[in-house]
């Protein structure tokens, strides 16, 4: 269906016929440079156990688990614009599910993780169904309230979750029959599933589904006018983020072999949020850097300050909010956007 257009009068004289440049969505274009950086990162992470001391590798593994949680939160906060202050609940539920399956069902490799992701998704669906109706600060408060209820459940449902002592003595994950207790094997196991989780998140964010979420975040009335039902998309985003958080919880159970109500608590959610803000929301990979920084501060710096860890964290909170309005990733992106747009040319990555 094309229509002959009568003469166009527009102020900007166009040189020759206007070049109809084929359309390619801006955010999905991954320049080759970003691809190379990502590949290098994965190789470095995989090689880590060879040249890092055992404890450093364990710390790195813990960073990966937390990074996946932060990345899943970023799908909600950065892409869908839903500020959740209770995302650790689905992380914890996944961890408990994985731990329970490993102890009572089978610790064979993928089973506990898949159950964890399913548990996270299920809990997120139930909570999301209520939470997603509200927006802004009410959503923030509702997610906080739901997370506190879930945490209280973990604390008082003693027979299953082990109550306030937590679920301890989770059997090690077995891959092809052999228990992964060696630090390096565990690291690779976590790295593999971290990449799977990250890939899922990245593909969601770069796909039309992600574009829709961004649209709903920026201009919900317009999206409704086009025909996107916002409630269903927000709920889908909440469940997807809950599933990946559950997966991260499964990795926590595999790595630390202990799950306590504190893992579901407000502090964990706030730290994950800090990681997203430090890393730069909306980029999925940004919060992973943020998570590494947060774990570094919490686990290595804090103890050496003689118990004044929370003071350090408090100061980091304040500094980050002022100094890095758009996080580490933001630094890179704002440089790119300041480039003048060529008339009809491609914006280079």
């Amino acid at each position, binding site marked *: 269906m094309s229509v002959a257009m009568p003469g166009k009068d527009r102020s900007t004289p166009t040189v020759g016929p206007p070049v109809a440049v084929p359309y390619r969505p801006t955010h999905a274009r991954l320049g080759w440079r970003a691809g190379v950086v990502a590949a290098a990162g994965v190789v470095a992470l995989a090689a880590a156990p060879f040249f890092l001391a055992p404890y450093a590798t364990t710390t790195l593994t813990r960073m990966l688990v937390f990074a996946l949680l932060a990345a899943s939160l970023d799908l909600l906060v950065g892409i869908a614009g839903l500020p959740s202050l209770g995302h650790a609940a689905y992380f914890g539920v996944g961890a408990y599910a994985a731990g329970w399956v490993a102890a009572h069902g089978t610790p064979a490799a993928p089973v506990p993780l898949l159950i964890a992701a399913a548990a996270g998704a299920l809990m997120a669906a139930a909570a999301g169904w209520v939470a997603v109706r509200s927006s802004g600060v009410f959503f923030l408060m509702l997610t906080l309230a739901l997370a506190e209820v879930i945490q209280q459940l973990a604390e008082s449902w003693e027979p299953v979750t082990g109550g306030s002592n937590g679920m301890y003595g989770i059997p090690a994950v077995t891959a092809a029959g052999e228990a992964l207790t060696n630090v390096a094997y565990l690291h690779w196991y976590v790295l593999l599933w971290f990449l799977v989780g990250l890939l899922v998140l990245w593909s969601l964010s770069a796909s039309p589904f992600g574009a829709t979420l961004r649209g709903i975040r920026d201009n919900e009335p317009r999206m409704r006018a086009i*025909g996107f039902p916002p409630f269903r998309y927000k709920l889908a985003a909440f469940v997807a983020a809950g599933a990946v958080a559950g997966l991260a919880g499964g990795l926590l159970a595999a790595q630390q072999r202990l799950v306590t109500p504190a893992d579901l608590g407000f502090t964990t959610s706030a730290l994950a949020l800090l990681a997203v803000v430090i890393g730069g929301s909306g980029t999925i990979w940004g919060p992973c850097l943020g998570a590494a920084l947060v774990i570094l501060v919490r686990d290595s710096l804090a103890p050496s300050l003689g118990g004044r860890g929370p003071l350090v964290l408090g100061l980091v909170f304040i500094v980050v909010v002022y100094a890095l309005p758009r996080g580490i990733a933001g630094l890179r992106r704002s440089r790119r956007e300041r480039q003048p747009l060529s008339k009809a040319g491609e914006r280079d990555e």
Partner: protein
Amino acid sequence: MSDVLRCVGVRRAFGALHAVDGVDLAVAQGARHALIGPNGAGKSTLLRLIAGGMRFTGGRIWFDGRDVTGTPEARRAQLGIGQTFQHSSLFRTLTAADNVALAVQRRRGRSWLPVPHRPAWAARVDEMLTLVGIEDRAHHLVETLSYAECRQLEVAVALAAEPRVLLLDEPAAGMSAASTAHLLDLLRGLPADITLIFVEHDLDLVFGLATDVTVLHLGRVLMSGTPADVQASAEVQRAYLGTGRRGDLFGTERTTGGEHVASST
């Protein structure tokens, strides 16, 4: 010609104010139906009621023979009711092409895979941009577009969703004469199977495009009919100007007889 859209006794009150007070409206398939009337007549409210952005306080609405009174806005859009907004509401941080792509994506299937380049969609996007005449601004951020170009983009986004009825809320508001003329050509060029319902104050555009006109006043239908009937009706002028002189309202002296054709509901 069957009616593609029918409103019966549509009512919307804000407390004591009856913005829309029992409107009956029938829009034929393929019609270019204009809604005119002085400010505060309830034109925009009626449009939003049809689009589903606002809840009814009374009456029913049928679209394609289906009662859509209770259907939410997003579902009505999927059924084929497209709309542009009086204050243009676009995604300022995205490029023009991205804005249209969202609508195309909603229509052509929503996949979860990050396949960056979709030839079928890209062609559709370019087609829409070319149709409204801003194809060379495809990759510019909406922030950098001029006001007129934004209005054109709004139409492109609405059309990209392949609506069967397109609601336009004062499309020519704040446009220069040249841009308005351009918009007129654009709207005239739209395929016949798309029905247009538009609210507009620029009477040149109204009478240059409309096949039917409904005049609203204080939330009620004052008169519905062909453009000629409306121009001839003294009652419409009184509603607009409060005086009987026909000339200054419609600029040129019409040759139609002076007799008063009143057909108010």
